[in-house]
């Protein structure tokens, strides 16, 4: 993993004005992964979009961690089903 693909959690939290403990809780529930380098926690850049979504759920919509966890699973399911619909539509084209 190259350093330029990581963002320090402290910096991220300061920029978004959120508590570091929120990120730790997300990691505990397995919703995000934290990379530790010399005791400093980092977030991989490709997780940022997902993380910002969780921040909106928690701070703007007042959804607690259990709710975020449930929603995350359901959104993954919605995503898979949408992909499946596209695949089935393409398959249907084969027979039209």
């Amino acid at each position, binding site marked *: 993993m190259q350093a330029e693909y990581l963002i320090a959690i402290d910096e991220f939290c300061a920029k*978004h*004005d959120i508590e570091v403990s929120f990120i730790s809780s997300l990691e505990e529930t397995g919703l995000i992964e934290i990379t530790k380098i010399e005791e400093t926690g980092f977030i991989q850049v490709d997780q940022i*979009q997902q993380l*910002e*979504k969780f921040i*909106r*759920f928690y701070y*703007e*919509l*007042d*959804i607690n961690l259990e709710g975020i966890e449930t*929603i995350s699973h359901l*959104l993954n399911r*919605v*995503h898979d089903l*949408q992909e499946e619909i*596209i*695949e089935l*539509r*393409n*398959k249907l*084209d*084969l027979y039209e």
Partner: protein
Amino acid sequence: MAFIDYYKILGIDKTATPKDVKNAYRKLARKYHPDLNPNNQDAKANFQQINEANEVLSDPEKRKKYDQYGKDWEHADDFERQKQQSQSSGQRESGFSGGSSQSDFSDFFESMFGGARSGRQTKYRGEDYTTEIHLELIDAYKTHKQTLSVNGNNIRITIPAGVENGQIIKIAGHGGPGVNGGPGGDLYITFTVANHPTIKRLGNNLYCHVELDLYTAVLGGEITVDTLDGKVKLKVKPETQQGTKVNLKGKGFPVYKNEGQFGDLQITYTVRIPTNLTEKQKQLFEELAKSR
């Protein structure tokens, strides 16, 4: 420009307390927030309305102005002017000008509140933009560049070979600008890949029908087949039956973002029976039939 009943949108009455407004907004936002309704344009439109209603009703000054002038909002400035004149005071109207215009807000909101967001300096992420790109199957076969015009800005993107019909790709940071220092939104591009007249695609595999004349089907031979990658010579085995399938490994569609990897091309043979036979030819077929 129609009057918008923000109370009705949030499902509350005019006596609602700030807490009631907050609760009603949160409840509806949880239902219609775009993060919770991926690729749902109706939910997005609903959320914009809810957001706008909350923007007005959660701000005491905006709510006051909205309550005071409501349906007569178009004349709000005239009323204010008259009031100021009668009071003969030199005070300026507190107003709602300034700040950036929010394209997510209705014309009604923009006219009444000047497009400004006042009060809380909450950081808002910019709006996500969506667009569509239509490609022919042959275009999706090769990696190529295309220039898109999104909200007046030209963006040159590389479309990797193997893109699927219905596939959505995200171009980070090319959506609307953030508000109050918030991050920019993303651009989501949905690809529509048109069907080819003779070649069908399923995932990375291609399927086509190739006609064989009766004599090649019976005696075998060599044919040339058109593929998306050019012409391919194929040996046809003697006594090839109608509907025989031949799999050409690696002659299918490129695998998305896996350069050099391709699916297969499956050819189904259709034997063409000769027509307009001469008497002599009919006789030969009869002899052939008798010999069996």
